[in-house]
């Protein structure tokens, strides 16, 4: 463990040890909202990853000049800035996707992961490492969302990325399209992941 470089540790934390959905339990709102469709999920993940990484980088760069009193306001300002930039770019260069995502892009601002990482990491770490931390957390959020979206789109629509993969006789599970199914799936996954982690921990202790 001690030999791990800081960058490597940041990635391991973001992707597994301290992953946003399963351990920090942040970003659940967007998990419920976008994961019924893999394409929307991928765009959401890209948006969140970009905003978290760039937000962390910018905040870490200016943190030495920033009065503590206004740090929340400035954090929100910076995140809004990156999110609106994404929105502007999508509207200009990918109008079809922008139309599909509609209000979700704006909702990236309210994603708790952004604020969480800014407060927990970027405020006390160097810019490059903060950028990596944002990236890692975005990806940690991403792999969970993509797995959920795969399951939900498959059962809810019988398709993957919009391509039909099952026969005509398949009856879509309407519940999978609606938000409650994400609740069930996230809860089950949380249970599975945490049980696995607890077991791994116990095994490690036993070995010592």
């Amino acid at each position, binding site marked *: 463990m001690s030999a791990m470089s800081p960058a490597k540790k940041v990635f391991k934390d973001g992707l597994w040890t301290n992953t946003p959905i399963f351990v920090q339990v942040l970003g659940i709102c967007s998990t419920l909202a976008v994961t019924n469709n893999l394409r929307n999920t991928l765009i959401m993940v890209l948006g969140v990853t970009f905003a978290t990484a760039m937000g962390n980088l910018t905040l870490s760069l200016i943190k030495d000049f*920033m*009065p503590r009193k206004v740090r929340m306001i400035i954090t929100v300002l910076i995140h809004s800035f990156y999110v609106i930039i994404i929105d502007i770019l999508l509207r*200009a260069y990918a109008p079809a996707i922008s139309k599909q995502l509609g209000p979700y892009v704006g909702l990236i601002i309210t994603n708790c992961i952004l604020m969480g990482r800014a407060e927990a990491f970027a405020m006390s770490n160097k810019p490059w490492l903060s950028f990596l931390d944002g990236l890692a957390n975005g990806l940690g959020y991403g792999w969970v969302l993509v797995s959920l979206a795969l399951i939900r789109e498959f059962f809810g629509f019988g398709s993957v990325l919009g391509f039909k993969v099952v026969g005509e006789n398949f009856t879509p599970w309407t519940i999978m399209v609606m938000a409650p199914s994400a609740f069930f799936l996230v809860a089950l996954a949380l249970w599975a992941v945490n049980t696995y982690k607890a077991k791994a921990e116990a095994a490690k202790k036993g070995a010592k």
Partner: protein
Amino acid sequence: MKLKKESIGYVVVFTFVACAAFVVLLATANEATKNQVKANQSYASHYAVLKAFGLADIATSKADVEPKYTSLVKELPDPAPGMAAYSTVIDGAPFVAVKITNAGLWGPITAILAADPKAERVRGLEILDQQETPGLGGRIGEPWFSAQFSGEKVGTDGKIAVVQGSGKGDPDKENSSVDAVTGASRTSDFVRNLVANALATIQRIGGSL
């Protein structure tokens, strides 16, 4: 000299400068892409009008849309604020289309509906913009849904019913009814009203054509 970071003057100046800097960047980005966004919107609208008239489909290439639109479609005076009207002639028969925005479940639904001037039979429906529940009401934006309206006979009450059906689309063009989206009764009601309003407007315009 060391700046007093927590002094009121510094806090105000810092916040002001930070806000100004980011706003300027955003305004620049917005200004730089304004024309592109406008072009996208007008393209989407022209393409939808052509599709509602049945003059274009997904096979139509992007470059063909503008020339086709300018040569075939005539823009009529707006029938009401926020609406737009178009006319065209296909095989000698005139058709009228209106762009209409009506209430939906979460936000407005904007659609283009084309029909004959007497509004007796729908030519085509294109949903241009909607914020219905993704996966449920949002499916009104899918081709199978709007395709049901093409060639549908309008009922004597000037309406087309949106009712529970097989969920795969209603192929009967004479029964003045189409299949609703499963799990989206409210959205279906809004679509029915929107279509009825559009048909009434087309009838009004068609009478004076």
